[in-house]
């Protein structure tokens, strides 16, 4: 079990089994078993909250939460946005394909 404390993230100081947690890349330096006050100071010095929010991991979690909270109206808006985006992509694809086929035809003509 580990002694865990999250003064700036809303976690009380408590013991927690290692299986309940996943380690991140961030490391704070303070002597082991230091008081919460020192943990807080080290945390704020390193600005962990901002660093965490910038990681891809945190962004994925946030995206998952947002998706779960989507209302019916939001789903409709997402659908429309996706549709629009796919149209644009398809349009560009078709343009490129057309160019490619034109080139191919030119080459064929030149070969003949």
């Amino acid at each position, binding site marked *: 079990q580990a002694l865990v404390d999250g003064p700036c993230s809303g976690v009380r100081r408590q013991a927690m089994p290692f299986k309940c947690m996943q380690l991140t890349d961030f490391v704070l330096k303070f002597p082991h078993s230091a008081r919460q006050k020192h943990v807080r100071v080290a945390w704020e010095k390193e600005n962990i909250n901002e660093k965490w929010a910038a990681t891809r991991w945190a962004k994925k979690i946030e995206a998952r939460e947002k998706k*779960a*909270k*989507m*209302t*019916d*109206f939001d789903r*409709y*808006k997402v659908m*429309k946005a996706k549709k629009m985006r796919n149209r644009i992509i398809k349009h560009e694809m078709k343009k490129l394909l057309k160019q490619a086929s034109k080139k191919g035809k030119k080459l064929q003509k030149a070969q003949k």
Partner: protein
Amino acid sequence: GEKKAADKKAAEAKPAEKKGSQKKLREKARKPKKHHASRNPVLARGIGRYSRSAMYARKAMYKRKYTAPETKIEKKKKEKPPATITKPVGGDKNGGSRVVKVRKMPRYYPTEDVPRKLLSHGKKPFSQHKRKLRASITPGTVLILLTGRHRGKRVVFLKQLATGLLLVTGPLAINRVPLRRAHQKFVIATSTKVDINGVRIPKHLTDAYFKKKRLRKPKHQEGEIFDTEKEKYEITEQRKSDQKAVDTQILARIKKVPQLRGYLRSTFSLSNGVYPHKLVF
């Protein structure tokens, strides 16, 4: 209250100079005194900090000496209404009068003091039932209709009618749903709300207005029955005008929200991997 009024009248009758001062004195004397909180802090339940004698001193009971209101000795003992009356009685050799009680004993004592409740006790007719409305349904909420010919359509909620049904409109121009009634149970309330603050819904839109009309006069019993009953529903001019009156107000508000019009035009459906219990509406 009565005393105050009577005294005020008396004060008015008196000369004007005395008026002001008399009134003020009387009103001051009658100012309701605020009661002090308990002067005996509680140590434990039922046990106060101070003894009776200490409390007597703290409450200054030595200052508060009340005497019972004096009944005037001149006044005879309370004038009770007489308990018995002597009434003259006719006939010979009857003694001429009888002593009759003014307030007689009851002639019947029921076996149960409280009368038995009827079997229909507490059973109210439908018109007096309590109507409930889910907290998620407020005026302006977008609802998804689940049954009826407009199933799957997204619709704007206007108000709850007297029978408990919901008055709902498309609006007609958006999804061909007219002013219509919907049942609360067969509707999904989304969290999307249109601001319907100043919209005026005509007062004649009640349940009677929307009730289906059926003719029931089977005078001809030889096959002409089906002709007289209303087969095809025709939209009356009044419905059209009411629809227009409500919809113009609502459409204006819908246009303010981006993409809301398209949302109301679309229909709701489930597909693979979409589970209603997991969706947030």
